[in-house]
């Protein structure tokens, strides 16, 4: 059985209430929502895929493209913003050649700006996968990325 069918079989209750939990479960499994998976969810919940897409784009949690091997999240909460998180983001844009919501062509890195990570006492904060970097400086970004690249060359 397909992985997606397996997830859907966990949701026996077929109504609109289940839509967001199903989307979350699918995204947790695959990392993003593909067109194919939206159609399958639609068929299972008896909802048109267009409606599901409309809902999914409303919420910031859902993404529609695969993430990089290293997913970099930059916090742009208020505290991080006044501690110049914008220049960290600019540095990442420059170093990786991608903007918010994109992934590098080799699939190594993807970039996301998030609202608040909840470490306002440690601002500015970035996270690479589950590893957090508190009080990070834009001049340190290059070294961080080089370290990761080194590991893979």
């Amino acid at each position, binding site marked *: 059985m397909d992985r997606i069918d397996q997830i859907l079989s966990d949701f026996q209750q077929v109504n609109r209430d289940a839509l967001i939990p199903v989307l979350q479960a699918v995204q947790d499994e695959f990392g993003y929502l593909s067109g194919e998976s939206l159609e399958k969810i639609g068929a299972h919940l008896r909802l048109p895929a267009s409606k599901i897409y409309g809902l999914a784009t409303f919420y910031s949690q859902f993404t529609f493209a695969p993430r990089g091997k290293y997913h970099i999240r930059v916090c742009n909460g208020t505290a991080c913003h006044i501690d110049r998180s914008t220049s960290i983001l600019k540095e990442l844009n420059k170093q990786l050649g991608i903007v918010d919501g994109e992934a590098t062509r080799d699939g190594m890195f993807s970039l996301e700006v998030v609202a608040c990570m*909840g470490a306002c006492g440690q601002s500015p904060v970035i996270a690479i996968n589950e590893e957090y970097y508190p009080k990070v400086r834009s001049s340190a970004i290059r070294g961080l990325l080089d370290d990761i690249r080194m590991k893979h060359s």
Partner: protein
Amino acid sequence: MPEEVHTGSIKQLIPEFIEKDPKEYSPELGELIERLTRRKILKPLIMVGLNTSGRIAGARRVFEAVTGYLKERDIDAEVAETGAIGLNSEEPVLSVQLPGRTRVLFINVTVDDVQVILDDVFHHTIPSEKLLGQIRDENMDAWQDVPFLDELAFFSRQRRILLKHNGIIDPLSIDAYIAHGGYRTFLRTIRYHTLEEICVMMEESGLRGRSGSGFLTGKKWMVAQQTPAEQKYLVCNAEESDPGAFMDRALMEGNPHQLIEGICIAAYAIGATKAYIYIRSEYNDSIRKLSAAIQAARDYGILGHNIFFSGFNLSISIRKGPGAFVCGEETALIASMEGKRGMPQSKPPYPAVRGFHKKPTIVNNVETLSNVPHIIANGPEWFRGIGTGECTGTKIFSVSGRARTRGLIEIPMGTSLEVLVQEIIGGSQSGHTLKAVHIGGPYGGILPANKLNIPVCYETFRRAGAVLGAGGILVLDEKTCVVDLVKYFMGFMKHQSCGKCIPCREGTKRMSELLDEITRKPLAEDQHDTLEKFRGLMQLEKLADVMRDTSLCGLGQLAANPLISALRHFREEFEEHIFDRHCKPNVCRELRTYYIDVELCTGCTVCAKRCPEDAIIGTERHPYFIVPDKCTGCGICKEVCKFSAVFYN
């Protein structure tokens, strides 16, 4: 009594725990409570604050260092995790308690510090480095020359009711919560009180919604309670998405059972048998702890069917919010739970009459619900005794930005804001001057440093042009730009507007454009354009009125608040941006004008080639020159210059 206190050992004693007065508890129960509350320990106890922000600061590594240290030396001690004590800028926090002695807390602990601290403490001396203080307890021997927490400026003016056990108890242990008197109130409530009694008590207490609405919680409950329906719902709103607000997260991570008990009492009072916690999907640690807390409560029979033979049934489930700021509004939250886009509905009918699945639904915030067990246990008079007549109880603030101490502060309503900012958090960071304080997140307002002498309360804040909101406080110093901050908030609101009401959708966009406009330097601008900009800014007040009067929910109604209050107090800063095209703290990048130092420039041509605006002119091997009118302040020239010849003023 055995050496080890097993988890679940208090479970059998719950009937005695509820029925008897705490003074008449049997020796067995009394001893167990002593042990579980850690007033009596037989081996050393080490606790590390493993809340999200502690983890980000490296608390996990400290925790591992502690376990490694104990294992290496074969020391028999207990290591446990705890929540946030509230000193978020000083994390990781480590605390050590030896049998018979008070607990001592250390801050800013690194992996290398662990050995030094533990070596000293196990030799009965307290190192002065990284020391915070000790927790006062009359039944234990205090350490010499170690300050008590309640003597420190940060804690002495606080009144911690909701945060009392935060950073002290193990949030995952239901036994510890019960030993501190937890769930006694709920279990007594369902035995001895009617639904109306609880609603009346809540109304008398004067507790008002802590998410910013300021509506009387008891009144809301009464409406839902009196609406006949075969099914009612209670929803805990944990969609804390104001940037800079983290008090709900701290409450969920530090003491999840307190919230669960609040939910239980609230559900009972309105006659709901199903409760939901709608929580931000990013709050992984809160979700993990709440799930564990719900499971533990179910195992103890505190949740489920016919709870302690009272005939009351309750189940709590967690719904993960897929991320939309507007879902903090109750009707939008309900729409999201029903699998729709989170768009607000017009009220009335209020959710208390017709909400989730068209049934009476009460939506309360985490902090509001965490207050409930305390109010019912101590009575409404006790609660009214804290705070002022209009605003009762305490309020938790989360302080971030350029403050000396950043973290969580719980103070009685009516305390002066000045006390909070100057005494408790110690003003701005050393070497900087306090400029202003922004309160209430993206729909809040700004108050300059000399106007902080107002009591903390919904009404006084509103009159001063600020909003209490969820209680996020952002401290600004001279290095921050008010225009940039307002632009940031407006951009946030523009992004988060759900698009239902045109005044909000278009208004936030228009305001955002205008602010973008004044923080950017146009290439050719004459006097006329400058005046137009200024006129546009003045007209924003009118636009703000329209948005306030015609938007459905708070997002649109309050979106212009930061701008209006900033214009009121920092008008000269806006004028400086418009007329002088200058940003004093140099935050607005695009207003910077770059210059080339003729002494340092070698005429290598690199900057001229890279300049996207062709604003750099000169001849090779001679110093170059930047045409100020053409420069957009992108800063590429400064980055590429190998001779550090490019600078800005």
